[in-house]
């Protein structure tokens, strides 16, 4: 922010102003829970720099217009302006007004009155707080807790109840004007006051103000004052006759400036007697109020939402301000089914997901793509949640906010075939096929033998010290079955023993595999074949059992009991 209408070339070459945010909390993103449990993003108000312009993010822009001549008081727009929050901006005549916070009043002349008990007393100006008391030579007074201690000429007592200050009368020169107070005001003062150091030679006084372009300048040396010329470069010339290094007090107005004297008014100095039309912008919300962030793209105007339970959720990406319309370049297309094959005769559906990402792996929302599916035999494709197409047709759609498209595909035929989904997205294209199985292929006749072989390791041991192991084959539907042979294989060369039913007469001890035979003719008390076996496990082994093609669940990490 500058009070100059033009900017020097050297400053422009430095890159001023650089893009970014103004300060601290400006434009900081916070997340909050919105309606229905959505996770919405909110952006704090503040200022930022972009496109060589100082810009503002107001939650609730308040605008006030007024006409001011030289000095004026204006009702401020409704504002809870936080300390580091959005700025209050005043503009007039295409000029930004400078806001300042002048609450320090150095070297204020007090009116002393002699009272009883050898004391002098002065009342402080309204709405001020005493910071220190000092003499003309900058010697600072000490403070006491009661007027009873004011026996030394360099002590003072501050009665903040009645806003007065006491000193020993003996310390006050006859004129009583060479003891001054440094004060703080509870409201900023439009008229600026500061202490500056004399840089002249004592004859040609010269001091420099903190601000440039100042008007109605008055210089003070103690109780002596002098009205000075306006200054555009901050240098002020006087004839107060002070020595180099001495302190001089300057009072002035900063040309085109304002202060917020309270939450409900601002004071403006225009620096001209010509009426100036002022426009004042300010933030209109309390400091803790957050602005729900909306997305400019895609789906302009919708809240930014991150709860993955909702349809409009985003997954990952950058959040930024830009006037650019860049939407990202698709770089990768990923495609997956949730099954390796699908049985058409069983009316099964298969889920498919397409994901479009950029070169950094960031999902790309709202990317146009086309999807077609060719099933042999035919079927239906459902792009969740609504779009439906039949075989061969092409659907135009867009990626959701997560850069994804979810589909369900339902083959409808009972014969075998292939399901192929093809996706094209700008210059990317891909397709993926899975087999459609008919019922006969899914469970051929022989498959009915491929039921379950249960392997259960018991807690007891056989007479030979083998852990007892039971095997029982079943048909696919769980009906117990007989079997002429049952084979166990070990990956780690575990040792088996096969006993004659429960008699525990060892008839076979084999390593790595064992063939147990049983008979359905007289299996004793057993339904189906329950082959009692023994095993000594070698390490963490894999055991597989097969019974005429029926294959067991593979048992892992079968350990000794």
């Amino acid at each position, binding site marked *: 922010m500058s009070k100059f209408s033009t900017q020097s070339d050297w400053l422009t070459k430095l890159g001023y102003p650089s893009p970014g945010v103004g300060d601290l909390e400006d434009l900081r993103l916070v997340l909050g829970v919105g309606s229905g449990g959505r996770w919405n*993003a909110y952006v704090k108000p503040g200022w930022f720099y972009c496109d060589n312009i100082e810009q503002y993010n107001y939650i609730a822009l308040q605008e006030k217009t007024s006409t001011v001549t030289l000095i004026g008081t204006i009702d401020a727009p409704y504002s809870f302006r936080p300390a580091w929050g959005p700025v209050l901006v005043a503009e007039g005549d295409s000029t930004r007004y400078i806001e300042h916070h002048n609450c320090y009043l150095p070297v204020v002349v007090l009116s002393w009155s002699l009272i009883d008990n050898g004391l002098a007393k002065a009342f402080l100006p309204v709405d001020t707080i005493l910071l220190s008391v000092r003499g003309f030579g900058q010697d600072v007074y000490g403070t006491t807790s009661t007027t009873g201690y004011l026996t030394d000429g360099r002590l003072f007592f501050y009665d903040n109840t009645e806003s007065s200050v006491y000193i020993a009368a003996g310390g006050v020169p006859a004129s009583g004007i060479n003891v001054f107070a440094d004060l703080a005001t509870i409201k900023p003062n439009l008229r600026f006051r500061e202490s500056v150091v004399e840089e002249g030679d004592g004859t040609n006084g010269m001091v420099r103000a903190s601000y440039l372009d100042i008007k109605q300048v008055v210089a003070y040396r103690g109780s002596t004052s002098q009205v000075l010329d306006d200054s555009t470069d901050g240098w002020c010339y006087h004839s107060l006759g002070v020595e180099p290094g001495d302190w001089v007090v300057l009072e002035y107005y900063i040309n085109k400036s304002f202060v917020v004297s309270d939450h409900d008014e601002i004071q403006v100095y225009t620096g001209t007697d010509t009426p100036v039309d002022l426009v004042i912008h300010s933030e209109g919300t309390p400091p803790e109020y957050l602005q729900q962030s909306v997305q400019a793209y895609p789906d302009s105007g919708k809240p*930014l939402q991150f709860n993955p339970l909702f349809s409009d959720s985003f*997954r990952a990406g950058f959040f930024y*301000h830009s006037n650019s319309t*860049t939407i990202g370049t698709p770089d990768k297309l990923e495609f997956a089914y949730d099954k390796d094959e699908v049985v058409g005769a069983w009316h099964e559906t298969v889920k498919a997901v397409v994901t479009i990402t950029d070169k*950094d792996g960031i999902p790309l929302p709202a990317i146009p793509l086309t999807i077609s599916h060719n099933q042999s035999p035919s079927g239906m494709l459902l792009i969740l949640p609504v779009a439906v197409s039949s075989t061969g047709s092409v659907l135009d759609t867009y990626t959701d906010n997560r850069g994804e498209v979810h589909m369900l595909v339902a083959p409808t035929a009972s014969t075998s075939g292939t399901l192929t989904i093809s996706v094209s997205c700008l210059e990317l294209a891909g397709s993926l096929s899975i087999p459609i199985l008919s019922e006969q292929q899914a469970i051929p006749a*022989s498959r009915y033998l491929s039921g379950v072989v249960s392997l259960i*390791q018991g807690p007891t041991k056989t007479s030979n010290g083998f852990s007892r192991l039971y095997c029982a084959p079943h048909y696919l539907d769980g009906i117990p079955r007989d079997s002429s042979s049952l084979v166990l294989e070990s990956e780690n060369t575990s040792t088996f023993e096969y006993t004659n039913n429960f008699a525990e007469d060892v008839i076979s001890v084999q390593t790595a595999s064992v063939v147990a035979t049983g008979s359905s003719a007289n299996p004793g008390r057993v339904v189906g074949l329950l082959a009692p076996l023994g095993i000594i496990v070698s390490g*963490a082994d894999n055991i597989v059992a097969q019974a005429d093609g029926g294959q067991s669940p593979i048992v892992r990490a079968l350990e000794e009991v």
Partner: protein
Amino acid sequence: MALDQLKLRFGPAPDDPSTAVGIAFLASPAMRPDLSVSSFETYRFAKENYPQLREYYWQTGVIDSAYAFKASFDGSTVAGYAPQGAWEIYEEGYRTSTSGQLFGIALDDHPIVTSGVQQTRAGSWGISITTGVVYRSYTVPTYENTDMWFMTGCLSGVVIPGTQCILVYTVPEAFYGTLGTSDGYTFPGQGYKVRTRLESAHIAGPNRITFSGNPLTLKRIVINGADAYSGTFTDSTAQTGPIKELNRSLKWLDVRFSLNPNDLVELEYTEYAQDYLYLGYTDASTGVYYPFDCNPEFGHVIGDHRYGALRSASECLLEQVTVYAIPSAVGVFSLDTTTTPNTINLKFYSAFDFSEKHFIRHIVGEPIEDIVPRVSDGPTNTYGFAVFGRNYYDEPSVPHRDIFSTAVPSMLPLSRVLLKAPASVGAVAVADARKRGGGVPEDANLDVLVHEPGALDELRGYYDLGNWSGKMAQVGGVALFKIDKNVLQPVGKFTEASIMEIVKMVVPVGVDFTVEFI
């Protein structure tokens, strides 16, 4: 000059970052089965670690009588297939004693257990169910579901309310294998079933990845979404490409490239399919397929039988979804008094002969199963029961209660899946991408302040350069703050960064400062 237009964009990084004002990078939590939703509870139907073959007893009331027992399979055909002889098993002359000894047969009990939630490559979450066989004694209740297969067809009129039978539940290990009777006996046998698994692995060292599964063939190593390896690696010792060693016993993978502790590492590999992944079922009576996908993210759906429609998984999970098994076979008892001794017949029927194909199913929104006295008309269950959070099996104080569903009385409840509070908004990773701006760029050459006439004076007119956000003009001098180091953590309560912020708040604008901890 003062604009009020915050044009926000979300997505990939802008092509020209210099023209944009970065605010944040956000990453929403990817729902993972072990993170958010899987409030997943499994029923138990037997004592834990029940190791033995189960002695199944049923009372026939036979006392002082000799009976023969004959179990048979009514399997002249099973969906067109003639099994290896319709087997029959006899046991004769077993006499019960007057003291009430029970007749018993030994049946294998290999519990079916839902073992967790498994994520497919398409991001669907299915229920992993271990293979096994469960038998259950059952008395058909009056409110038996008439659409249930064993109440239809040739069993209509045979299995009626009051009929005592054995229900068999099974989960075979493979539906789509190519196993045949001629397969050899080599390990692990031909046609064994493997599945592809994508595991989110952990980093144990600069070059070491640990995993929890049992990979047979390593197919991909994915680092932060990009393939670091793609192929088929089966040998655990041979060094191939970036793979140094795959140690299956200690479950680590050593690689030849460096890993960052913050990397997201995924391993895709094949492993033995020891369980059945449930992703939906076909209702044989209607031909309707009801998909099941308990990933609560949008785009994942569950078929809800009540509406005959697909519903968002998150909506269904709010109501809870019960996963259960229906019988795949039934054994029906009958008494033949024409033989000497009389014969107790147990004849099995297969559900495949009744066109059933899917025996694991789900039901949405049904009330939690009722608990009724076993002595009432509720079906009996020989396996005890457990309800959510409470295992009645181990509580002898309620010995006569049983678990069943009035909607599907013959169901074997396996688990319940419901949506508990998903990850909170705090799970969204937010990286502040803001950069201070408005002044001069941080890398600007400040020599110009010396060489350019009047530069400093002009700077004093730029409020944001000398006093607010710019840093060029330090006209106010430099302050040194000496602060007792005991204010810092762990002795104190402040961090160095927080001290800097505090100091920054109190230092006048235009004054540079240095903090020294003493």
